[in-house]
């Protein structure tokens, strides 16, 4: 686990007393596909804003954490329930041929798209063989 992702307890945003109930952490559904230049990862993060999104690469692990502020107004009662109002968390192991320095991401209408470019292939190097 990446140590630099703060857990809920040490989260800096102070929440009102009545929201101190345990929060759900959910695994968002993802798609990964190949393009010429590398891989594209898309994740459904409905309700997540750019400010609430943390994307980190540490060693070979890519971690995404999307914080969701509850859509429910003050004092609302949940009468039908199909999803948990919680934060999104998922992490991935990157292969060695992903160029970590050039990873880029964008968030549009609750969909995160991460571009994982392939490291440019090194030129073949000729190794000269000495004849003894």
């Amino acid at each position, binding site marked *: 686990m990446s140590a630099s992702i703060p857990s809920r307890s040490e989260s800096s945003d102070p929440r009102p007393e009545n929201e101190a109930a345990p929060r759900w952490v959910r695994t968002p*559904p993802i*798609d*990964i596909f190949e*393009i010429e230049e590398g891989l594209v990862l898309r994740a459904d993060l409905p309700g997540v804003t750019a400010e609430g999104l943390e994307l980190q690469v540490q060693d070979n692990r890519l971690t995404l954490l999307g914080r969701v502020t509850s859509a429910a107004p003050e004092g609302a009662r*949940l*009468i039908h329930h199909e999803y948990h109002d919680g934060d999104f968390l998922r992490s991935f192991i990157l292969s060695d041929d992903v160029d970590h320095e050039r990873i880029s991401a964008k968030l549009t*209408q609750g969909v995160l798209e991460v571009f994982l470019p392939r490291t440019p292939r090194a030129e073949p190097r000729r190794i000269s063989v000495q004849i003894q």
Partner: protein
Amino acid sequence: MPVFRWGNPLHAFPDLEREMDRWMKSMDLAFEGLRLGRPFPALNVYVTEEEYLITAELAGCEPESLDVHVVNGELVLRGNRSLQGAIPEERFRRSERPSGAFERVISLPERIDEQKIRADFVNGLLKLHLPKLPATAPRQIKITDLNQPSATDSNPV
């Protein structure tokens, strides 16, 4: 211990079979949700003093592609989520996000002000605000006693 009817004990079997059939059918319905995965979009419904609030998780949907209407006391939410674009299927290494056309029908409770239903779409989350109608004052219904015709009720001459 099975209980058979008086008479031919085998007559009980068609009943049992029917009962099993019915049971299997209800199982099918119960597991349909599991077989097809979670319903899309996932909905939550909240209630406050003033309104009902329906939230739908619709990440990646264009607001223009969504169709929300109210008919016969039901709210219908329709749309289409297309994901792939021009990317061929064999390029996918993982494909978990649901796509395609969807429709959800939600029965509305009574006393909803249908004219004032409002829908917001922010960050892939659709919020439908359904305001409650103000509680109507109890209306007294006058009971006319037909056995005692009053003076005003007299026959015209």
